[in-house]
Structures are given as structure tokens and as C-alpha cells.
């Protein structure tokens, strides 16, 4: 923990925060997509973020690895403050893995090459070492036999599991999931969620934007509800689903749980 991060006053002094967002606001043009976000995440915490579309939940996690700029406030990840400094940004990105809705695998590389690329170039591992790590994580996401195929030859669920393995190969301290199952056919959602659940069991810090409330109930330490750029409510899942305090949360839950 560096001085900068340590100097930030939080009400969770006895905890060990890995991500701190302090008064973060962001505008797309004149549209205020994030409003004064205050969020502290401890090591090993599993957070599920839900909310209606356009509420800013994807933008929020994309700010954490600086895929989105923010105009005011501060974000500190693992002791590194995110500024415009390219070195800081790259340092944060090395420690933060991300899984996208559209998988975003590199179609010109095989599954194995997808998993070794950043290990070799960013982590400076030898090719053999990188392949060993890649095969280990492909095993973990249960597709070791697809290593030599190209992403285009795999199903959506398989591609998303490769994307998870690709991120894990960098041994990140935090994993961000941006609606990881939204682009999948229904029968493939479970295989991806199973992998995410087993990942959660290893103690990985996870931020998951999703509408899979079953996943939230079984895995999350905290569920965040966002609406119009604000964190409206945050609570452990049992409390969140059975006894929400905000009217907006109640309305949202009634809409997504009614069928």
C-alpha cells in the first residue's frame, strides 16, 4: 500500500482496499454518465453490479482499467493512481483483467497464442513458460483440447471461456466482467457462469456487470444497483434481494425477477 492510497480516508480502515473510486464523475459530451461515484473494494471481494441499461455500470468498470477517461475524481488501483500517465495506465492494466461482452479474442491467433501473447510481451515470460501457464488456465476453463484452434472455430461459450483464460494468464489481481453472458445463446450461459463461480472460489477479486441474478445470489459479497450514473444501493445479496431500501431498486428487481 503506497502513501497516496493510504492517505485516502475511508470508513473501512481495517480492510485492505484494492480499488478505490473517490468522487468519480464522467460525462459523454453533456451527458453525465457517472455522478460522484464513491466505491471501495477490498481484496478478494466479489461485487455484482446491476441496473437498467444506460445506468453507467459498464462505464464504471471500464474506468477502472482506464478504457474510459473520467473528468473528475480519483481512482486508485492496487496503490497506483490512474492519471493520464501512460506508464501508470499500463501498470494498472497489467494487474486488472477484463472480459468483454463480445469476447474480443484475436481472430488471427490460435487459442493458445491468444493466451500467450501478452504473457510474452508484457510479462516477459519465455514462450515455453507462457504456454505452460496458458495450458494450465485453459484446463481451468475446461477447454484444453481447443488450444490449437482459431477463435472463429469455437462456439460463443467456448470463446468466452478462452477470453477468461486469456485474462487469467496475466495473473491479474482483479478481474472485471462486462456483461460476460449477454451475447451468448441461452444454453451456453451456464458453462461460462460455472467457470466464473469456480474462479470466485479461488478468492479472486471480481467486479461483474451482469443481469444473472442467480449468479449474484450465490457468489456476490455485495450487490450494487446503479441507476442514472449513481450507485443507488449496495448490500449483501440476501439483504439486497429480500429487503431493498430504495424504490428504484424495488422497481428494477420487480421488472427482472417477475418472469
Amino acid at each position, binding site marked *: 500500500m503506497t502513501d497516496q492510497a493510504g492517505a485516502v480516508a475511508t470508513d473501512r480502515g481495517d480492510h485492505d482496499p484494492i480499488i478505490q473510486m473517490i468522487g468519480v464523475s464522467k460525462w459523454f459530451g453533456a451527458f453525465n454518465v457517472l455522478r460522484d461515484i464513491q466505491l471501495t473494494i477490498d481484496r478478494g471481494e466479489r461485487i455484482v453490479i446491476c441496473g437498467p441499461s444506460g445506468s453507467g455500470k459498464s462505464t464504471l468498470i471500464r474506468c477502472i482499467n482506464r*478504457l474510459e477517461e473520467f473528468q473528475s475524481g480519483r481512482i486508485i488501483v492496487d496503490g497506483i493512481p490512474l492519471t493520464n500517465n*501512460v506508464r501508470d495506465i499500463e501498470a494498472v492494466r497489467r494487474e486488472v483483467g477484463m472480459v468483454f461482452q*463480445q469476447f*474480443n479474442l*484475436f481472430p*488471427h491467433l490460435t487459442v493458445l497464442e491468444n493466451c500467450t*501473447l501478452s504473457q510474452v510481451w*508484457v510479462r516477459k515470460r519465455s514462450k515455453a513458460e507462457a504456454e505452460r501457464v496458458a495450458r494450465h488456465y485453459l484446463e481451468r476453463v475446461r477447454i484444453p483440447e481447443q488450444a490449437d484452434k*482459431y477463435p472463429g472455430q469455437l462456439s460463443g461459450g467456448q470463446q468466452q471461456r478462452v477470453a477468461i483464460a486469456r485474462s487469467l494468464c496475466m495473473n491479474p489481481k482483479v478481474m472485471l466482467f462486462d456483461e460476460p453472458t449477454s451475447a451468448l445463446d441461452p444454453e451456453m450461459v451456464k458453462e461460462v457462469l460455472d467457470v466464473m463461480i469456480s474462479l470466485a472460489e479461488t478468492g479472486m477479486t471480481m467486479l461483474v456487470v451482469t443481469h444473472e441474478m442467480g449468479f449474484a445470489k450465490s457468489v456476490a459479497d455485495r450487490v450494487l444497483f446503479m441507476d442514472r450514473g449513481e450507485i443507488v444501493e449496495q448490500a449483501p445479496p440476501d439483504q439486497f434481494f429480500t429487503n431493498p431500501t430504495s424504490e428504484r431498486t424495488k422497481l428494477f428487481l420487480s421488472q427482472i425477477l417477475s418472469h
Partner: protein
Amino acid sequence: MTDPTPTDTAPPPPAGTLGPLAWLRANLFSSWFNGLLTVLILWGLVELIPPLVHWLVIDSVWGPADPQTCRLADGACWAFIHEKYRLILFGTYPYDDQWRPLLAVMIIVALLAASCDPRTWCRLILPMWAIGIALVLVLMFGGVFGLAYVENTRWGGLPVTLLLSVVGLAAAFPVAILLALGRRSDLPVVKALSVVYIEMIRGVPLISLLFMSSVMLPLFLPTGVTIDKLLRAQIAMIMFASAYLAEVIRGGLQGLDNGQYEAADSLGLGYWQKVRLVILPQALAMVIPPIVNTFIAFFKDTSLVLIIGIFDLMTAAKAALTDMYWRGFYKEAYLFVAVFYFCFCFFMSKYSKWLEARTARGVRR
């Protein structure tokens, strides 16, 4: 047909869908309009081909012969080519040393052939080309290893065309990549410079660039400093090709899904790593057809250097025609030159098809 015999095998297709007659109907006479076109084309071929064969082969003069024999014959005068092919292929290069440009051409062709396989691209290609081109220049210039010095104003024909286009494209390609990246850069100065360069060069005909490089540039140089004419033409052609290629490559960069940039970013790859490992392999593969299109156009555009007095293949053919003794055999000369241009362009086009098929392997989404 009223009493079909029972059979165990699958029923045959209806009558008239198999065999040469059916093929004819499907491909040549599927409608009255297509039938008319077929007949017209057949008539055209009947009119054209026999006289062409007569002129090219049957009535033509082969082997060594004097112009008088040619003028009496009805066909092509290949004796002219027999007499002049060394002048057309190698220009005014000293006659007894013409094995040197021949070897140079062979080295360039060998380099091209060796570069065809993408597997050689990673490490070998740069040293291979550096050594190859150095060898070509040593052969052409001479002055070492007991080779007589030949200044480049005496070079001509095929090696000049090949050198201008191959070196031109090889040098223009990396410049074009930088320009394309620059035009999409977030840095305002880099972006502005790229836009200005591309638009200025694209807005000017190649001929005027060549004139500027050969006539205007020396005016601005301090007295005593001269840049070789061939080199000036080469630089003008590199500038020209890079501007065009840059726009083609930019098309590929823009066609790439933004998620690819974000995935590379999120893995912590730096800008140049991202560009080299993720962006360019995909962006360039997407624009192979227009890149090769630009290459082919550029290869033929090298013939414009004749206006500043450089002796490329085309100029050499024109020079061969100025011989008083052999006047008037321009058809043969231009056909001969056309065969060379065609061979190189056709090869490029075939290669591009192969490369497209090869890169498409992994990119099935």
C-alpha cells in the same frame, strides 16, 4: 414414360439436366439475351483469331533476318526483337557486361519468390532484402571485385523498372503504415502532418512529382551538392506510393472492430505492441486486394520516368524503335514489353488471391 420400370436405385434426375447439351443451355443459352451474346462473341472470335494467329505465328518472320525480309512479309517481325532484345531489356548497359543486369534481375526475382511465403516474414526478410539489394547494386555499379564501374545513367530496361518499383514499394510500405497510424493518432501535430502529407501528394499527378524532383529540387540544393537523378526519381515514387498506400491501410485500420483495440489495451500491451501484434496483422489482411491493386498500378506507373529521361523498360523499347534501319516495328516492340509487364502484374494478382485465402483461414467469425 407412362410405364416407369420399378428400380431399387434413386430416381435419375429429369431428362435434360445432365450432359453437354444441358451444360450448353445452362451456361451459354439460358435466355434469348445470353444466347445472342454467345452468338455475337463466337462470331467475333471467328473473325479475330485466325488473322491474329497468321500475324503472330504463321506469316511472321522468326530468327535473324534483315528488315527488308520483314517488310515483305505479312506477319510480325520477330527478327526485330531478336535483334534488339538486349537493348530493350538492358538499355545502354555495356554490351559485354550485360550478364550483370541479367543476374541482378534474377536476384530480384529470387528475392520476390523467397518473400512469397509469409513464414519468412518474421526474421529473415529484412537481412535477406538488405543483402540482396546490396548485391544488385554492386553488380549494377561495379567498381569492385574487378567489375568495371558503370554509372547509373547507362543503366536501363528491366533492372531499372524492377529496382524502381520493388525498392519503391518496399520503402513506401513502412512509411505508409506510419502515415496511416499518424492520421488516426490522438496527437494533433502528428495527425495534421500526416493529413497534409497524404493530401498534398495525392492531389498531384505522379508526372508533376517526377518533374519537381528532377527539375525543381536541384534548384534548391546548394551548389556542388547533387543528388543522383535515378535516386531523385526513386524518392518521388516512394513519396507517391506511400500516400496512396497510407489511405488503403487506413481503411483496414478503420474496418477493425474497436473491441480489438480494447482487448489489447486491457491486457497491458503498449501502443507499438498493440499495433504490431494485434492491429496490423488483421488490418493489413483485410486490405490485401486494394494493396495489391495499388502495387500493380504503381509497377506500371514506373514507366512514367521516361519523361525525365530515365531508361526503364518502356523507354528502352522506344529507344530500340529509333534505329533508322529498323523503323516501324513498334507493334512488336510494345507487345514484347507488354509481355513482361503482364507477367509481373499477373503474378501479383495471383499471389494476392493466394494470400487472401491463406489469411482468411483464421478469421472466420
